[in-house]
Each structure stands twice: as C-alpha cells, then as structure tokens.
C-alpha cells in the first residue's frame, strides 16, 4: 500500500502533471496531421525526455502516443484522410457517417471508445501482465507467419468492392513490399540502381499518398459536394452511452483482440484496427450496412487500436521486447532513465510501475475533455471552402513526409502513391487493401523465410507446433469456408434437378 501512495506522489508532482498536459496537446495536434504518425510523435519527443525526470519522461510518451492514435481519427472522419495508419482501417466508415450528417456521432464514437479501449488495455496490463507476457513469449516465427497471413486475409473482408479487386490491390501492395534490401536474403530487389529505393517503400508516405493526395485529386476532379448543413455541433458524447449498451459484444471483442495483438511483439495498433474491423463485419448481423456510415465497426476498431497501445507495453516492460514501434522507442527511454525493463522492474521499482499504471489511466481520462476541445476546433474544417483546405493538405503531406527522414525521396513517394491511389479508387480498387499489403507483406515474407531456414526447408513445423496448428486451422478454415458454403448451397439444387 505504501508503494501505491508513493506512486501517487510521483505522478502528482507538478513537473509530471505539466508534462502530461503538454504532451497530450502535442499528441493531439501531431496525430491529427496526415503523415505524422503516433510513432513519429513519440520519436520527436525523445530529445525532450533527456531533460525530464524518469516518470515525467515516460508520462510524455504514454500520453502523447495515446492522444495521437485517437486524434488520427479526426481528419479521417472529416476529410477521409487518416491521420495515422491505425485509423486507415475505418476511415471510409467514419467519413460516410460525416456525409450522412452525423460527424459528431462518428467523432464521439472514436473518442469515447478510444478512451474506454485505453482503460481496458491498461487494466489488462495491470492484471495480466506476467501471464500475457508468458503467452507472447511462446510465439516463434511459425506462429507469426500465420498471424500475418490472417492479417492479409482481412483485405477481402474489409473491402466494399468485389473481392477479386480487393485481392488484386493487396497483391500490388505485396509487390511494393518486395522493393529494397530489407528482406531476409539481404539482397536488393527492384531498386533499379537507386539508393533511395534500397531502403524500400515506407508505409507512411505510401499511406499519405494513397489517402490524402488521392483525395485531393479526387476533390479537384468532381464538383464541390453540397455544403454540409451549417449548424453548431451537437453534444459529442450524447448517444455514446446508448451505443455502449447497444453494442457491448463488439466493444468487448474489440478490446480483447486489441489487447492480444498489442501483447504480441511487432504487431501494433494498425493491425489491431484492421483485424477488429474485419471481425466486426464478419460477425455482424447487418454486414451490408458496413461502409455506409454504420457505427458497429467503428466501435470495435476504435476500441481495439487504443487497447493494443496499452497492452503493447507488457512485453516491453517485462522483457525489453517492443510490442510495436512506439514501445520500441520507449524502451530506449526506459533504459536511459534507469528504469531498465525486466522482471525486477515489477519488484524493485514497484512504485514506478504503479506510477506508470496511474499515468495510463489519467492519460485515457483526460483524453475525453481535451479530445472534445480538439474536435470542436477541428470542425471549422467542415465549414471552410474546399479550395482553401486542399492546398493546405497537400502542403502538410509534403512537410509531414519530409519530416520523417529529411529525405526528398519520401515526398516523391507521396506524390507517386497519390496518382496510384487516385487511379485505383476511380476504377473501384480499394486502396485500403493496397496499404494492408504493404504493411503485412514484409512480415509474411520475413516469418515464412526464417521459419523455413530454421526447419531446413520442412513445412511440417507450421502445423506441428500447438499454437501454430490452431492458427493454421483458423486461417485455412476461413479460406475454405466460402467454398464449403458454395458447395453446400449447390448440392440440394443438383439433387432437385436430378429428380
């Protein structure tokens, strides 16, 4: 108990509270700018943490990353441009709600269920940390291969267009993921002698191009849509409690999936959002409503990505293994501040651990008031004329992508993917599936090749290891299921014809 009180004293120190508030505002702003991801927000904070006390340093990272994941939803909802990759899965859905005249409901869902997801993720961190870490540690590349493969299969589920076009878009994404030297063989592929292509096509500029630049191009080519009704935004939280009661199952599932994916090293908020959105659609009673501005998928995926954020800290704190790119950076800061990850952190530095938990809770709670202010400010965008917004977006895309590596090549990548995204969208190919292919492609390849090297070329361990076998069964089951249904439907007809 004394350690608990000590923890509160650590958190309530003025420097920590100021750090939380400032980093919350910072996270909200950075997350809402297209091209500046939550990871970027965290990376830019690192030099600042040099000058902070250990608890304040960790507090800035926790708060800023949680805020950035939520506020990435704002431009996605209002302009159909996801602020961070974690929002890409349900951008279309949120934007459809805005076009239906329910922007406050859509943003309210993002905010409310993000905060709830964050709280549940934190609870899982507190209660189940050692247990979850044990589970995650038993995963080898065989299991990760199936997991990444499952992620790829989400492409056909989330897309509204024909599955064939979705698969084509995903395969293009896989091809793009092949570029560069960052493959298991360490051999340059498709680089055409260019130094810039050696590092491969990065996800962030590709995403920004596909969504933001393509959206600007689309906006230029079609007449301005009728201005949304000029009115003051209603209450943002109104109706959220009703939705919470109406969709308890979706919310619980989103939280659980988010927590599990977060715990697994290397799979973060982006993957959590994709898988959850796909699951919501799969298990929904009204899958046809998805993509037309239906809250179900938004609730599940919005909860999921924030839940994964907190549980991503479990392997980081226990074993120094990053759960995602954000915690990869955070681990560096932990070491620097003498809070070395490891089981001793939970015993010798228990008060610091409690302080971390408290910061997680505080961060997710202040997300609600600060988020409402941010949403209110952001809604001016809806009233602005399109010719004023679009140039600003292009500028932000260019600056944002340049900032990730101080490399002009990234800006060119954004422009190129803008064209690709525009052409795909115009012909009914879902760009979300393309992005999914780019994100998952290197994971699938890496885990498949390394598994084969380990097993000396044998495919057997993919099915022989217990967890791997379960994942394989799920994956293959999902793949064969539509075929089985089709055959089953066909059989009685055939018999009827015979009679």
């Amino acid at each position, binding site marked *: 108990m004394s350690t608990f009180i000590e923890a509160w004293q650590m958190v309530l120190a003025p420097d920590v509270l100021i750090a939380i508030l400032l980093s919350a505002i910072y996270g909200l702003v950075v997350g809402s700018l297209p091209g500046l991801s939550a990871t970027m927000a*965290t*990376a*830019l904070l*690192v*030099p600042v943490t*040099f000058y902070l006390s250990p608890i304040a340093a960790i507090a800035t990272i926790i708060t800023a990353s949680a805020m950035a994941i939520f506020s990435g939803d704002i431009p996605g909802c209002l302009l159909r441009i996801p602020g961070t990759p974690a929002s890409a899965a349900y951008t279309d859905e949120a934007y459809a709600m805005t076009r239906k005249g329910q922007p406050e409901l859509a943003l309210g869902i993002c905010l409310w269920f993000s905060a709830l997801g964050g709280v549940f993720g934190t609870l899982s961190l507190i209660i189940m940390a050692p247990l979850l870490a044990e589970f995650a*540690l*038993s*995963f*080898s*590349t*065989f299991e990760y291969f199936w997991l990444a493969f499952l992620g790829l299969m989400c492409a056909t589920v989330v897309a509204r267009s024909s599955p064939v076009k979705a698969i084509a878009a995903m395969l293009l994404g896989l091809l793009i993921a092949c570029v*560069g*030297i*960052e493959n*298991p*063989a*360490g*051999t*340059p592929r498709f680089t055409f002698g260019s*130094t*810039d*292509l*050696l*590092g491969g096509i990065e996800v962030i500029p590709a995403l920004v191009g596909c969504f933001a630049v393509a959206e600007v191009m689309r906006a230029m080519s079609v007449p301005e849509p009728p201005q949304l009704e000029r009115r003051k935004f209603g209450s943002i939280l109104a109706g959220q409690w009703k939705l919470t009661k109406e969709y308890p199952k979706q919310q619980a599932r989103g939280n659980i999936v988010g927590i599990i994916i977060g715990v697994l*090293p*290397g799979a973060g908020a982006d993957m959590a959002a994709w898988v959850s959105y796909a699951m919501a659609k799969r298990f929904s009673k009204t899958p046809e409503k998805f993509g037309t501005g239906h809250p179900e998928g938004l609730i599940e995926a919005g909860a999921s990505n924030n839940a994964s954020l907190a549980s991503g800290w479990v*392997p980081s704190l*226990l*074993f*120094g*293994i*990053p759960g995602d790119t954000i915690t*990869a*950076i955070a681990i*560096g800061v932990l*070491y*620097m*501040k*003498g809070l*070395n*990850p*490891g*089981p*001793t952190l939970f015993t010798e530095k228990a008060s610091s651990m409690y302080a971390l938990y408290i910061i997680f809770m505080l961060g997710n709670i202040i997300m609600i008031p600060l988020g409402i202010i941010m949403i209110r400010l952001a809604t001016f965008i809806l009233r602005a004329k399109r010719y004023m917004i679009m140039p600003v977006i292009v500028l932000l895309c260019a600056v944002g992508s340049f900032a*990730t*590596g*101080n*490399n002009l*090549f*990234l800006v060119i990548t954004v422009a190129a993917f803008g064209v690709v995204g525009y052409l795909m969208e115009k012909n009914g190919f879902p760009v979300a599936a393309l992005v999914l292919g780019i994100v998952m492609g290197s994971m699938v390849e*890496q885990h498949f*090749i*390394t598994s084969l*090297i*380990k097993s000396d070329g044998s495919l057997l361990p993919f099915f022989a290891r217990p967890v791997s076998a379960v994942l394989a069964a799920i994956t293959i089951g999902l793949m064969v299921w539509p075929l089985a249904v089709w055959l089953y439907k066909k059989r009685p007809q055939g018999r009827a014809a015979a009679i």
Partner: protein
Amino acid sequence: MTELSRRHLMAGAAGLGLASQLASPAIAQTFPVRPITLVVPWGAGGGTDATARIVGSIMEREFGQPVNVVNRTGGSGVVGHSAIATGAADGYTIGMITVEITMMHWQGLTQLKHDSYTPLALMNEDPPGVQVSASSPYTDLKSLADAIRANPGRLKASGTGQGGIWHLALVGWLGAMGLPPSAVPWVPSNGAAPAMQDLAAGGIDIVTCSVPEAKAMLDAGRARSLAIMASARNPQFPNVPTLKEAIGVDYSVGAWRGIAAPKNLPAPIAERFTTVLKKINESKEFTDFMAARGFGVKWADGAGFAKFMAEGDAAMGVAMKAAGLARQA
C-alpha cells in the same frame, strides 16, 4: 546527385580547404561562427540517434553555437552516409558514421568507404556476445563449440538481418575456430530484440547480439551469455568471459559509432573538433548516459579512428567473402 556535380562539389570543397589552410589559424580560432549540422544516417529514437543527440547537446555548449541533429534515413544507411561524405568540407557539416560504412561497399551497395571521410573521433564500440536460451543444454562456450563441431549445420543463430554486423561476427568467430559459415546457418531477423524473443520461444539456438541488447532477457532468467567477442571483459558483465578465456580463440569484433566530416576538412578545424570530442568522450554526462543505455564508451582520435576503420574494413572483407555476401568483382 550526378557524378559531374559531385566532382564539382569535391573540387570546390578542396579549393575551400586550400584557401582555409592558408588562413588556418584565424579560422580555427573563430570556428564555429554559425550552427553546425550533425547528420545521423539512422532513424529518430534508435541507439545511434540517441548517441548523436547527447554528443550534439554537449558539443553545443562547448562551441557556443547550435548543433542541429538531422536524421537522414533511407537506403539502409546509404543515404545518410553519403550526405555526410558529400557535404561541404568546412566543418559545418559533420555526421555520425557507423560500422556499416566498412560493410556496405563490399556488398556493392555504394562506392563510399571509410576513407571517403575525415575521421574525427571514435566514440563507442559494442562487442557481441554469444547468447543461448536458459533451457539450452550448453552451459559454457566449450560445450557449445564442441556441439557445433560435432553436428555442423544443426544449430541455428540469429541477431540481425542477413549480412548485418552480428551475422558477420558469427561468421568471423566460426572462421577463427576453423569452421565454415555453414556450420551455424544464419536466420535473419529484424534486430536483436526479436531474435532474443525467438531464442526464448525455442525457435533458434544462438543469438550473437551485444550483451546489453540481451540484458533484459538475461535478467529475466530466459537466456545465458556464454562469452563476448572482445579482447577484455565488459565491466558491467564481469562474469561473462572473453572468447580467448573460454576456448582460446583470439577473435574480437564490434559495432561502433564515430564522428566524421567530409573528406579534406582543414586540419586546424579537424583538430578543434577532436579536442572538443575528447572532452565530450570523457565528460561525466556522456559516460553516465552511455552506461545507462548499456553502450560501451571507446575513444580514438582522428588518426586512431582512421586506422581502426581500415583494420575493421579488411576484417569485414574477409568475413563477408567467406559468408558469400561480398559482391563478386
């Protein structure tokens, strides 16, 4: 940048170097008069970035001029390393170069080599260790080495990507024992942390990353460090023997980071940098920071750094050819 413009730039830089050499004492005394750019070829948030930023912040105080740390990522480090090499040789563009500069040219990824720079100071080196899982039957390096000899190809190792520094450390170690690289096949991974996780999950048998990188898993009782590939023990891990102590094989290697400027930097300015960098290297702030991150502090001045890189480059060439990673000329 095209060949032509680079040549012009080099010529210009050389001319500038000549001009400044004539008026050198005056320049060295007033240097620097404007902000300095410190280029980092790797992304924000990583170990190289953190080291560069701490060096930059102390250097800023020493010089009384801002030092801007700029991450130039892309091309697996090639982009940033070439940005340092092709900058103006006036002392206002410097950078943190890393062990990859002695590796990339062997693979044919770039023309850049260690002698494309004016070396200023070596700041850090981390030797790799030999880690096995806690459930592994090998409790010392000798039994592990015997197992490798008895069953070549059965045990698998990881720690970084194909052709990365820890891969070459393994190849070099096997070579020093008189074994071919195929005695322990390499499983590429996205860095040391996933490899250590796979070690604990039973996917691989050996991880040859640096001991600090494995520290969390060692503390958690999931892994054991059997030896380090260095000439002396790491004071933070006094129980881990060197290769020579364990099996009598004299082999050492390491991942290093140092500060360098474009080629033909005027000598007085280079000396000024080296003096300041020496002060930084010995400062409590720097050594505390490096100890906290588990990074090893190492020092060599410009000439020493050049010699260090030349030796490392030759050793890498041998290891990369043995592993079949070097580009056939």
